[in-house]
């Protein structure tokens, strides 16, 4: 379980002013959950993810992974980035195996494992291709496989499908839910799409900017219906889904009427 306790991040802006990128945020990411941070740009959701990943120190507060404080980046938290960060000089297979290489796993062994992960994301036929010959959606799938290779406790996903067309995006959401139900990883997912948040999240944190903080939390279980049905259509037509979507939309557009739902 990952716990964020009173996390705050303060930046010194270029003009000398201080920016409260994140203010006093606390929440847990329990096992087998998908916690989604939802908000407009500037609401601190990426700052939050970067802090959990260890790329960015907290100004105050703490982040605990299974009770131990997070200090710097590490293979126990796999990150899937918005922009793909695959190495163009390595094949798809070697990109997936990169984390295992850093751990000193022998070449043959890490390639076998990488092949399994490529099969999990449906790209077993592309193992020997360079990443630039793949489409954007395929590259994000490689990114997911790469993040899974070190068998992290948690997957951190920073708007991973934001740059994809909406049809590819649905395929990717399906894939993520598949991977999640098969591996049971905890997932922390960032998005600015209310629909995506509701489709994927077991818990949704609605965030608002200046200062970046959590203004509402919702529990949801549309993702379980999604996983069971194997298709997103049923969930989208669920009246409860529409109702919650409208509620969150109103909350984001009129944040002054702050409320905290359980």
């Amino acid at each position: 379980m990952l716990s964020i306790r009173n996390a705050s991040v303060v930046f010194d802006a270029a003009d000398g002013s201080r920016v409260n990128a994140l203010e006093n945020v606390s929440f847990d990411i329990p096992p087998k959950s998908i916690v989604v941070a939802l908000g407009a740009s500037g609401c601190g959701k990426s700052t939050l993810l970067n802090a959990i990943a260890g790329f960015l120190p907290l100004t105050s507060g703490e982040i605990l992974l299974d009770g131990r404080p997070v200090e710097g980046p590490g293979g126990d938290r796999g990150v899937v980035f918005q922009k793909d960060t695959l190495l163009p000089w390595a094949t798809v297979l070697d990109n997936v195996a990169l984390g295992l290489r850093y751990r000193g796993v022998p070449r043959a062994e890490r390639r076998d494992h990488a092949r399994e992960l490529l099969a999990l994301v449906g790209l077993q036929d592309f193992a020997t291709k360079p990443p630039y010959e793949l489409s954007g959606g395929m590259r994000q799938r490689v990114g997911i496989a790469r993040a899974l290779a070190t068998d992290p406790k948690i997957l951190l996903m920073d708007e991973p499908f934001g740059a994809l067309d909406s049809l590819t995006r649905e395929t990717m959401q399906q894939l993520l839910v598949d991977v999640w139900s098969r591996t049971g990883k905890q997932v922390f997912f960032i998005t600015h799409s209310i629909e995506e948040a509701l489709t994927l999240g077991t818990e949704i944190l609605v965030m608002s900017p200046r200062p970046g903080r959590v203004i509402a939390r919702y529990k949801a279980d549309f993702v379980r219906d999604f996983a069971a049905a194997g298709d997103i259509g049923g969930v989208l037509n669920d009246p409860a889904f529409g109702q919650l979507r409208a509620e969150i939309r109103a909350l984001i557009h009129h944040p002054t009427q702050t409320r905290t739902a359980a």
Partner: protein
Amino acid sequence: MSALSEQEPLSAAALRVSRRWTDGKTGGTALISAATLLAILLLWVATTHWHWTSPLFLPSPSEVATQAVATALDGYANGTLLDHLLASLGRIGLALTIGIVLGVPVGLLMGLNRVARGVLSVPIDIYWGLPPLAYLPLLIIWLGIGESSKILLLSLSAFAPICFAAQAGVRSVPQERINAALSLGADTRQIFFTIILPSALPEILTGLRIAIGATLSTLVAAELIAAQSGLGYMIMSAANFLATDVVFLGLIVIAVIAFGFTVLMRFLERRLVPWKGKL
């Protein structure tokens, strides 16, 4: 629906678009270039055959060819053509080797370390701004008229562009790429060897191209001023006796060397960084 969701590999589509913008058609330019070369040769033959100019200004191709054989066999200005060629190539090779061996690590260090960047950029910027021939006399005063002053001059010409390129290569590594490696558990050494060095390689090769050009032009100029061997020396000796055919021979050999380096660099880039500009 299926047509819409079909995924096309990105590179193919991107290439088509970029080709449309940069060139009307695909396909090589080898034939066009060969025809141009032939036209220049024919113009040369015609000019000398019908004596449009004095042979003193423009020797005929056959005179140059005859002189090439004579120079290759009997030599000109203390050495055969091969002697001069090897002397020049040896200087370039040694200078480029020194430039790479010192320039790459120093440039990488400057890219990685703020203090190193601040300290080293000052002297490098100062000397790189000077025309090499302006400080050659100083190097001769310090090191004498022999090989060492020339090698130092050429190494300085090679060092700066390679060093700047390696530095720029390090600075251009996307932070996300480093973060990705960190989150996969990479330590500092692994980040350097698996992320930073390969990311900087295309820039380093570009720097090497510039270094070759700078070294070649400095070399010939230095040999014109102070040398007892080399293609520049051969050209200068010939010019003193108005042996225009030998001057032409020297220029052609230098052009062939330059072309050879261009081909070599293209080959290296295709082999080492086929992914350049792709991601």
